[in-house]
């Protein structure tokens, strides 16, 4: 019972520390939110890809990942939305608009809302079509089956796989590699990260996949979140070291 109370208290302390560091990061870095932050090269390439797609009149395809059937989207499922936001804003007047594909109903609906918002901001709502944010399949393998033909689309400039991707998306990565298409991938699934490391995808390992908004410099809140993550990381390390010493000395039972 003592163990459970400790875990509950530690969990609440972690959430409070996270809130505190997020607030401090928002206040302290309001002027230069993105300064002195390491950016993942994979996501920096994303910017170039968007320019190239616009210049060559080609299309960008983004897979937003899967989620459990009839479940609310978790934060890790939303990792691809900042990239979709930037991509659809840039492709409103392109020859070929961006194409978003999701493996979950809520994600597909969120994709449509984002793309529709960008067309509305650009006063071009008549060009919006619901096809721009589609459900690829209702189950993880149906999502893969719906994603492969879109990766193979003739005039693709690049493919993005961001969000909760499963390891079988190596089939999509291999198809993109065979067609010499640049692929930017990021997922919270450990197996998928290991399998995508074996391809030539531009990979966001670990939590970098969740910080697309900061890397693309399109969301100051995301940059503040990255700062807060670093402070939480340092606090966790200090906590581990202090806890180890206290436990070793028997001060903390």
């Amino acid at each position: 019972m003592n163990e459970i109370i400790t875990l509950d208290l530690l969990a609440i302390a972690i959430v409070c520390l996270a809130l505190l560091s997020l607030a401090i990061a928002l206040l302290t870095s309001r002027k230069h939110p993105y300064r002195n932050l390491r950016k993942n090269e994979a996501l920096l390439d994303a910017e170039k890809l968007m320019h190239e797609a616009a210049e060559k009149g080609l299309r960008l395809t983004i897979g937003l990942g899967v989620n459990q059937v009839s479940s609310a989207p978790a934060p890790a499922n939303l990792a691809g939305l900042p990239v979709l936001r930037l991509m659809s804003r840039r492709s409103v007047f392109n020859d070929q608009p961006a194409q978003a594909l999701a493996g979950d109903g809520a994600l597909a609906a969120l994709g449509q809302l984002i793309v529709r918002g960008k067309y509305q901001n650009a006063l071009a709502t008549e060009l919006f079509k619901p096809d721009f944010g589609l459900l690829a399949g209702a189950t993880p393998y149906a999502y893969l089956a719906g994603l492969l033909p879109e990766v193979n689309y003739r005039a693709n400039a690049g493919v993005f796989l961001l969000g909760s991707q499963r390891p079988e998306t190596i089939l999509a990565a291999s198809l993109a590699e065979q067609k010499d298409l640049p692929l930017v991938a990021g997922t919270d699934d450990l197996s998928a990260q290991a399998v995508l490391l074996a391809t030539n995808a531009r990979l966001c390992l670990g939590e970098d996949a969740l910080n697309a908004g900061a890397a693309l410099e399109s969301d100051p809140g995301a940059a503040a979140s990255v700062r807060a993550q670093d402070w939480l990381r340092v606090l966790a390390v200090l906590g581990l070291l202090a806890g180890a010493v206290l436990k070793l000395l028997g001060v903390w039972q």
Partner: protein
Amino acid sequence: MKKTIPILVAAAAALFILAALILGEPLAGWLEIVLNWAVIVASAALLVAIATLILTHLRNIVRGKRGFIFSIILISTFLVSFIGALVFGVDNSAYLRWVAAIQLPLETSLLGLAALVMTAAALQIFRSRGWSLLTLTFGISALVFLVISLGLLQALNIPVLTTVINYLQRLPMIGARGLLIGIGIGALLMGLRVVLGLERPWGE
């Protein structure tokens, strides 16, 4: 005003659920009701997304756009499996045997195809990623765990070897734990941004 309503709805739902989880018993009943609403709305979102998918492919067929043959295949198989379920019932064993007879070979073959594709990808790991500490340890680690998965070394039943193998099998726990903690912190902060309205996945 139109932009703040969704933010308030998201924050209210999140704060209510967090409060109910912390306070426990007094709000347990209401928490169950809110979770039930969320499950119903998430199911409806999937049904709407499936309907959008079907309408898109119907439009492709009507317009005779390139690749409309595949749209015909998709819509006909959808109708057969959807109407079949409503007519025979989702728990009907004959109907489930037909669904299994189609989905099982397709999904198993896709996963089997992934094995073949991984073999080709494994040849290119070092050419595409170059030498680095990460790729080198990744390659050596993959070789070691492939040998362990063979099961031949364990079959020799040499105590020292078995101890070394058991220790090697626990070694990846450290990297996995670091990854889980890092991703956990990232996801936690993204969740807090959604609750505080900083991250608005529904649009602006």
